[in-house]
């Protein structure tokens, strides 16, 4: 292995799924079997994905560490790199640096608990990694609740997996769209979920915080509004986890871009508890 910490692994795109008109999922496999053998990661970690010629962009690993041999990433087209990534095809090569950052304390804190996932929009990507991780080890946990919402029907990602979770008896799935999100123009024909914002839907879901761990990911505003609701439902701040998403360039604590006070999102995060979040300066 090179001593150059900026050297990416080379990975081949082996599957493409368009989640929404501007969101895509790639399945990536190592081109070098040696790399594949040595590679491990944990739920919550992230990486820098590069389109050669475009540059690097940061996303979480969206697949579960229990599924070996590949990783998946889901990204929205927002800038130069993601535009170039979006234009790639099966068989094309992308660069991957990682895994970086900390992870959800699954063994330490999730075992034996009721687990509640709350996600908004593309925030389901980091949560999906944990969901599959937990479902693949289902008997280690008690109840599993998933509350997922998006602005419109069109913005729901992983639609097939949502259906799959919905069918499972050992998962309680609550899905919702923001008011007006079920119009036909968003490709929706007969919505069988709730209508309303995630924090409100969560409040009315009947989910209880006793013996529970919560994982919340989504847009900053949704997180800010959801945390108090979780507290109300009885989730301890130490058992409520989220991820911070700041602009990152290096992923390894060098470029000085991602910090919130002394908390380097790339090194100390991206996963942190609501208790830790409350300690940070309000600059994220």
């Amino acid at each position: 292995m090179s001593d150059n910490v900026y050297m990416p692994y080379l990975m081949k795109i082996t599957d493409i799924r368009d989640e929404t008109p501007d969101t895509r999922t790639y399945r990536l496999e190592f081109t070098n079997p040696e790399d594949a053998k040595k590679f491990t990661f944990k739920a919550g970690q992230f990486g820098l994905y590069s389109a050669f010629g475009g540059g690097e962009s940061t996303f979480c690993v969206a697949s579960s560490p229990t599924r070996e041999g590949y990783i998946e990433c889901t990204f929205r087209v927002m800038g130069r790199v993601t535009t170039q990534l979006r234009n790639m095809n099966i068989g094309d090569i992308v660069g991957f640096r990682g895994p970086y950052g900390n992870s959800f304390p699954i063994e330490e804190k999730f075992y034996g608990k009721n687990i509640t996932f709350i996600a908004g929009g593309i925030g389901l990507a980091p949560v999906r990694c944990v969901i599959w991780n937990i479902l693949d080890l289902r008997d280690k946990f008690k109840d599993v609740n998933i509350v997922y919402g998006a602005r419109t029907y069109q913005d729901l990602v992983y639609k097939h997996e949502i259906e799959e979770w919905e069918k499972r008896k050992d998962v309680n799935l609550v899905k919702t769209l923001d008011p007006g999100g079920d119009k036909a123009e968003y490709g929706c024909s007969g919505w069988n979920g709730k209508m309303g914002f995630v924090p409100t839907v969560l409040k009315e879901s009947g989910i209880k915080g006793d013996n529970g761990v919560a994982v919340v990911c989504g847009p900053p505003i949704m997180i800010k509004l959801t945390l108090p609701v979780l507290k109300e439902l009885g989730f301890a701040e130490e058992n409520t986890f989220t991820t911070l998403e700041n602009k990152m360039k290096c992923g390894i604590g060098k470029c000085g871009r991602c910090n919130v006070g002394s908390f380097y999102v790339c090194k100390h995060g991206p996963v942190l508890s609501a208790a830790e979040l409350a300690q940070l300066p309000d600059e994220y």
Partner: protein
Amino acid sequence: MADVFLTHDKARELLIHLSANGVEAFGPVEKDGIHIIEKIHEQSPINFDYFITTNSIKEALFPRYEKILSYKISQEGVEVEDVPLDKSIVIMGGHPCDAASIPLMEKLFGWDYKDKFFLKRRENSVVITLACEEADNDCFCTSLGYSPRGEVGSDILLERVSDNGWKVKTLTDKGKNFAKEYADYFQSSLEADKKYPKLADKDVPVQFDPKKVKKWIDGHFEDSLWEKIASNCWSCAACTYVCPTCHCFDITDDATMWSGIRTKNWDACTLPYFTLHASMHNPREEHFQRYRQRINHKYSIYVNLFEAVSCTGCGRCSRACGARVNILEAVKMIDNAAGGK
């Protein structure tokens, strides 16, 4: 050991000799009335008569932009190539406040993941520092425990004994070997001028207590003092780019259809879009939030991470600031708010 001396003329010759022989030699050149440290070539107007260079020796170890890998794209796939870092480097012309930045930068670039671009360069380099003979109101190295004649981070310290030469003090094995290898350029005597040394620690008085400053910062992230301190800041990067300890960078690709390079380029927390998210959300919208990060990072965050203040008191940022924001004043205001000396 017998004393060793070096004259300005010989130092110039040496730098040019090194640069002609495959060494990356950095030295002070005079350009349009200012002195800057840059890579020396045959025609470089090397000049050692300055108070302080505008930029710092950072240029040599952490270049403004630097290739970190290259790649070729073909029908078969992508081939990525590493960048070898085997050139020897000699850096002459910084002051003790430049050299003191090196151990500080090593902490960051060696934090778990080893950034060989800085670390390897450091390993390959000989740092030859000029002790200070002059200080201005913006200098405050002593407040941070450094000294105008300090040795931290240097391999060789040159102390002026006359208008055209220095006494050579070798500080490390690397420095000793260098002096041995290029013994021809050094001499065993040089007529001393009584006016040197002109500057001692006491001429740069201690002006604040960094511990107190940190304590105040930690308790006052939200405080109107920040707005006052930075009220005239217009958010450029002059201060950060001349600073020996500012290390922030961007990573970008420069490519044609079939090949390209990836580079690491200076960037700065004081620039308006440094932290802008792709969603257009910017955690540091306002000028004072960005300047707060600059001070906070140096005087508190760095201490939390590495137990050292990431500022050597060189005053370059104050001198370079066209808006006349002055870091010493800023830190003194904080020190005052924390209850004075």
